[in-house]
């Protein structure tokens, strides 16, 4: 019996119209979750460097819990587990966004902490010596510099989170992988379709990389 491995380009191209509708969902979950995760990250990242111990420990617990458990478990917990507590179902899209938010929030809070702590002590001393309050020193001097240093790590986290959304096919949200799976179920062209799915992730993450590199370059010019 002769076995031939053939990549069927027409099957690959043919899947595109079925995959494309998944892209907005992938983007919505990723960037919706990351936007919320960014604020969670700033909140806990700043708590983490507070001089007060009782403000620091909730941040430590948060990071350990959400960085230390798999995002797949987190989204299953939110989508299947939480409804038992809430007494009603949770929309799969909301569950996906929430999972990205709490998960990326844990990593981003570490990025924020590292960024702020990397700013030399002399910067805040100079600000305070000029009469700026601690809040003003943070807002006008520390944060703008810290944020610039955080950009590469934030970009990295964004790319990781975009790829993490592929796991959410398990809760049935119609993102890229889910769209691919549905299509494969009728055509049995797994090789071609997953290849196209991979290409689409690559198109998204590559575009983001290019944008980030420009942002970094502009940041460094200042």
């Amino acid at each position, binding site marked *: 019996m002769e076995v031939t491995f053939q990549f069927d380009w027409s099957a690959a191209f043919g899947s595109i119209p079925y995959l494309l509708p998944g892209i907005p969902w992938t983007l919505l979950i990723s960037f919706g979750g990351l936007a919320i995760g960014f604020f969670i990250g700033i909140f806990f990242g700043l708590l983490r460097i507070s001089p007060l111990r009782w403000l620091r420990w909730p941040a430590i617990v948060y990071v350990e819990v959400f960085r230390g458990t798999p995002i797949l478990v987190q989204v299953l917990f939110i989508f299947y587990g939480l409804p038992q507590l809430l007494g009603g179902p949770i929309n799969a899209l909301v569950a996906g966004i929430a999972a990205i938010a709490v998960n990326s929030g844990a990593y981003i809070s570490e990025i924020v902490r590292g960024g702020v702590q990397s700013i*030399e002590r*002399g*910067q805040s*001393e*100079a*600000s*305070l*010596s*000029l*009469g*700026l*309050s601690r809040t*003003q020193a943070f807002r*006008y*001097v520390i944060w*703008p*510099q810290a944020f*610039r240093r955080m950009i590469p790590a934030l970009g990295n986290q964004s790319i990781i989170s975009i790829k993490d959304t592929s796991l959410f096919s398990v809760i049935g949200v119609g993102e890229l992988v889910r769209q691919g799976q549905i299509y494969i179920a009728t055509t049995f062209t797994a090789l071609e379709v997953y290849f196209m799915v991979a290409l689409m992730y690559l198109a998204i993450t590559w575009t983001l990389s290019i944008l980030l590199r420009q942002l970094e370059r502009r940041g460094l010019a*200042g």
Partner: protein
Amino acid sequence: MNDTTPPIVRMQQLNKHFGNLHVLNNIDLDIVPGEVVVIIGASGSGKSTLIRCINGLEEFQSGNLVVDSSELLPYGKSTQALQTIRTEVGMVFQQFNLFPHLSVLDNVTLAPMKVRGLSRDDAISSATRLLDRVGIADQADKYPSHLSGGQQQRVALARALAMEPRLMLFDEPTSALDPEMIGEVLDAMRELAKEGMTMVIVTHEMGFAREVADRVIFIHKGEIAEQGPPEKLFDTPQHERTQSFLARVLKH
């Protein structure tokens, strides 16, 4: 100096510890308006810590400290006074500490706008005047990293002066500079002293100290070992520690 002028800084029995280390030991120090005080001493003697106590960048554990009629309490427990003092006391640091993300002009205008509430136009015109005075008006739109060390330190001086301080602290302002740039910074400080600014300067520039200081203080192991007019302290030091310190630093 007139003995009846009320001091702008009054330090009494000030003590500071870093763990087991007694960094400042019962310091008594009065500084009157218009006075230029230079503090000398070996590294680790506590001279930087001493001036950093004056604007509350360092906490102390006991003693009295009144700066410009605001009282600073031990352990930094005086937030309001601290804020008041810092708006009236300027400081120039060894490492310049310019804000690298802001242009030279924005470095100088930030505090007057945010703390004093000056309009942008007023802040800019006063900043331009100050930058002109320290000889770098033409660099106003550049970022600090594009300036030489000497230029950066002069911007730092202009930045502090923009708050119109009543007292200026200098923490080894020329120690991080290449030798050929020390002169331009000392010149700017000399000008300031001539204009009557009250200055407390920690430095290793003994020639400058002799020329500009009204009083030189020698600190040894956290204590004021000896103080007096520069001629007296440099030419006829009484304390054996002062003699050996001066012998070491004046040799080269």
